[in-house]
C-alpha cells in the first residue's frame, strides 16, 4: 500500500432525498473530498445489494447507499426494503471477511447538505483506514 492510497467509493443515491441533499451541499458550496462518485437511482429500494458486491469486484474500495430517512421515502416504503436487504448483505460480506467499513448505508434528506458532507468524509475515512480492497477484485476489466 502506497502512502498515496486514495479510496474509491461508489455511492448509490435516491433521487428525492440523498441526491437532492448532495445537490444542496453543492448549492451551499460545502467542500468535501472527491473520492466518492455517485450513481443516481430513483429510490434506495432500487439498489440491489449485489450492486455493492459488483462495485467491490470492479474496483471500488467502499460502497455507500443512501436514501430518505425512514418514513420519508418518496415512494413510501422503498428505503425500508433497502434497509432490510442491506442489513443482510452487510452481515454476509462481513462474514466472508470484507471489512464492514467498506459497506455503508445512510439516511440523508433533501435538506441535509451538511450531513451529506459528513457522511462522505466518514465513508472515505473508513475506507482509507482499511486500505485498498483486494479480496475479490476482478483483475482485468472490460466495460
Amino acid at each position, binding site marked *: 500500500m502506497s502512502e498515496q492510497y486514495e479510496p474509491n467509493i461508489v455511492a448509490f443515491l435516491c433521487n428525492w432525498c440523498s441526491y*437532492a441533499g448532495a445537490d444542496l451541499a453543492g448549492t451551499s458550496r460545502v467542500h468535501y473530498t472527491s473520492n466518492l462518485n455517485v450513481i443516481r437511482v430513483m429510490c434506495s429500494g432500487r439498489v*440491489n445489494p449485489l450492486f455493492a458486491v459488483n462495485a467491490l469486484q470492479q474496483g471500488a474500495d467502499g460502497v455507500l447507499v443512501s436514501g430518505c430517512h425512514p418514513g420519508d421515502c418518496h415512494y413510501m416504503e422503498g428505503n425500508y426494503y433497502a434497509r432490510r436487504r442491506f442489513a443482510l448483505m452487510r452481515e454476509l460480506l462481513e462474514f466472508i471477511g470484507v471489512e464492514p467499513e467498506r459497506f455503508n448505508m445512510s439516511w440523508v434528506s433533501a435538506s441535509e447538505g451538511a450531513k451529506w458532507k459528513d457522511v462522505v468524509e466518514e465513508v472515505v475515512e473508513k475506507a482509507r483506514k482499511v486500505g485498498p480492497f483486494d479480496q475479490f477484485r476482478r483483475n482485468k476489466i472490460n466495460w
Partner: protein
Amino acid sequence: MNNNKPKIGVYVCHCGVNIAKTVDIEAVRSYAESLPYVKVARNYSYMCSDPGQLLIKEDIAEEGLNRIVVASCSPRMHELTFRKTLAEGGLNPYYLEMANIREQCSWVHEDSEEATSKARKLVAAAVAKARLLEPLEEKEVEVEPATLIIGGGIAGIQAALDIAGAGFKVYVVEKTPSVGGKMSQLDKTFPTLDCSACILTPKMVDVASHPNIELLTYSQVEDVQGYVGNFEVKVRKKARYVDIDKCTGCGICAQECRLAGRIPSEYEAGIGKRGAIYLPFPQAVPAKFTIDPESCLYLTRGKCGKEPKCVEHCSLGAIDFEQQDEFVEFKVGAIIVATGYDVFDASRKPEYGYQDYDNVLTSLELERLVSASGPTGGEIVLGKGEEAFVPKEVAFIQCVGSRDASCGNEYCSRVCCMYTAKLAHLIKEKVPDSNVRVYYMDVRAFGKGFEEFYDRVRREGVRYIRGNPSEVFKRDGKLVVKAEDTLTAKPLEDEVDMVVLSVGLEPRKDTREIIDLLRLSQSSDRFYLEAHPKLAPVDTATDGVYLAGCAQGPKDIPDTVAQAKGAASSALILLASGKVNIQAQISVVNEATCRGCGYCVEICPYGAIEMGEVNRFGHIVSVAKVNEALCKGCGACVAGCFSGSIQQKSFKDRQILPQIAVLGVVK
C-alpha cells in the same frame, strides 16, 4: 434502424465560471471524445441557453447523434430542459443522460485536478449508461376535473374560489365545524389595519354558496389512493349530533345548554367560553351548531338532567344523538394541502410564566381581547369582577418559539414582528395612557408597508428594547420582566401589568398523518417540503399535490393568498389540460424469465403489480404484470427480483452495471 449503433454526443457545460472555475473543461471534453461510441464532444458556456440547446439539435441533425450526454448541473435541475431539447431535435427524450459536474463536483471540490478527474469519471459513467439507453414512451391519462382542498382557512378558501371560478368542481375538507381558519380569529390585519372579519367573511360565504364548491366541514380526509389526475379520496364526516338540514342556527340550544359558558372556546383562544353545543363564532360558515362529544354531558355520561336541554328547546328537532360518522368518497384530479399552522405552545418556555401567571398572555389571546367580537367586546380588561383592571404597563416579548433552537424552531415565523406592532398600536389606541414596550431580537419589517407601519407605531410611543428577556416573575403582585438592554448593556427589571408573548407558528401536530396520506416530505423546519424552494414553491414531490399557505412555512395573509392562487393555478393547469403524462421510467416484466414468485407484488407500495397468466407453450404459468398507470417508477421491485425479470426502464441492471464498472475502473 438508425438507432441501433450508438452515436453519442457529449456536451460539457462551463456554466459560466461555475464549473469552469474548478474543472478543466477542455480536458473533460477531449477525454469524452476518446470514449467508445462518442462521435462528438463539445463544450459551451451555458448548455441550457438557447444557443447551447441549438448546438445539440444541430448535431443530432448533422452528425446523426442518437444518444446525448450533457455534463452540467444536477439532472434535478435541467433534465427536463434537455429532454425537451432532444425531443425538439427529433430524438426520443429518454436518450439523454446527464453527468452532474456542478452540484456534485465543481461546487464541492476546491482542487482543480481532483475536480477535473472526477468530472472525467462522471462523464465516462454517463457515456457508459447512455449507450444502453432505450427510447421510452410517455403515456397520457385523463384527469378527473375536480380538486380536493384540505383545510378551509384563507388559503383553502382562496384556492377553492379560484378553481371553482374557473368552472371546476372543488371539495373543501375542513376539520373544524366552520371554515375561516386562523384569520377569522384576528381582529385587524397589519399593516393596513383592515378588519380581518370584514374582508374574510364575504369569502367564507362565497365558498359555502358557490355551486362548484362542496363544503365538508367537521370532516377529515381518511384515505387517498391513486395518482395524479385520478385520486380516490375518502372523507370522514364526523357526527355533529345536529341535523344540518334542520338546524337554522338560531342558537337557543347553545343558550340553554347546561354547560353554556363553561367550556374554553377554541375560537376565543381559550379566554372566552362556550357550551357543549356551540357555533364556533357568530359568522361561522356553515352557521350550524355542533355538539362537542368530549364535553357534552349526554354524550360523555349518557345523561343530561332529565332530558338534554338542547333537545328540549330545539323546536325543529335538529338534535340527533344517534348520528354516526359518515363516509364520502369521490375522485379528484388534484389536491391542495392548505392545513395551516399551530400556534406555539407558550408553556414550552416556562421561564416566561405563561402557565403560572394570569396576566401573561399569548398574542393570539390578546388578539381576541382587543377584538370587538371577543369576550370583552374589545375592551382591554384583565381579571374578573372586582379585580378587573385596565393594564397600563404592557410588555411584548418577541420570538417566543421562533428563532430558538432550544425549542426546535430555528426559523423565523415572519408575522410576529408585524402583528406585535399592530397589537401595540391597538393597545395605544384603546388605552391612550398606556406604556407599551417590545423586547425584541431584530425587527423584521420586510413587506410592503411594513417598515412604514413600524415607524408609525414607534412614533406613537411604543418603545422597542433590544434584548431577549431571560425571565418573567412576580414581585409584590406585579409582573417583572428581567432582561438586558443589549444596546446599552444595561440589565433591566421591568415591572408591568401585562406580558404578551409573541408566539411563533409551528407545523400542525397532524402533519405526519397528511404526509403518510399523500406521500409528502418535511423540510428540516418540519413544515411540508415543496418540490423546489424557489422554482416550484407550491408543488410537492407527489405529482398533482400542491401546497398553499402556512402548511409550507410561516406566512402572512398576502403571501398566503398569493400562494393559494399559485396552487390553484397549478391545479388548474392540470384540470384544464384534462390530460397528464404518466411516468415513463416504470417497471417492465420479462415474462419469459419471470418465475412467478410474486415478490414484486408484495413489495410494490402502489399495488401496481399483480400476477397474471401467460401461456408458455401450452402451459398456463403465472407471471407478474405491471399496471402502467399505477407504477411510480421507484424500482423497489427490481432489486427484489431474484431472476432480474422485472426491470425499471432507464434504470435497468444492464444500464447501471456499466456505470459501476466505470466508476470502479476509471482513474
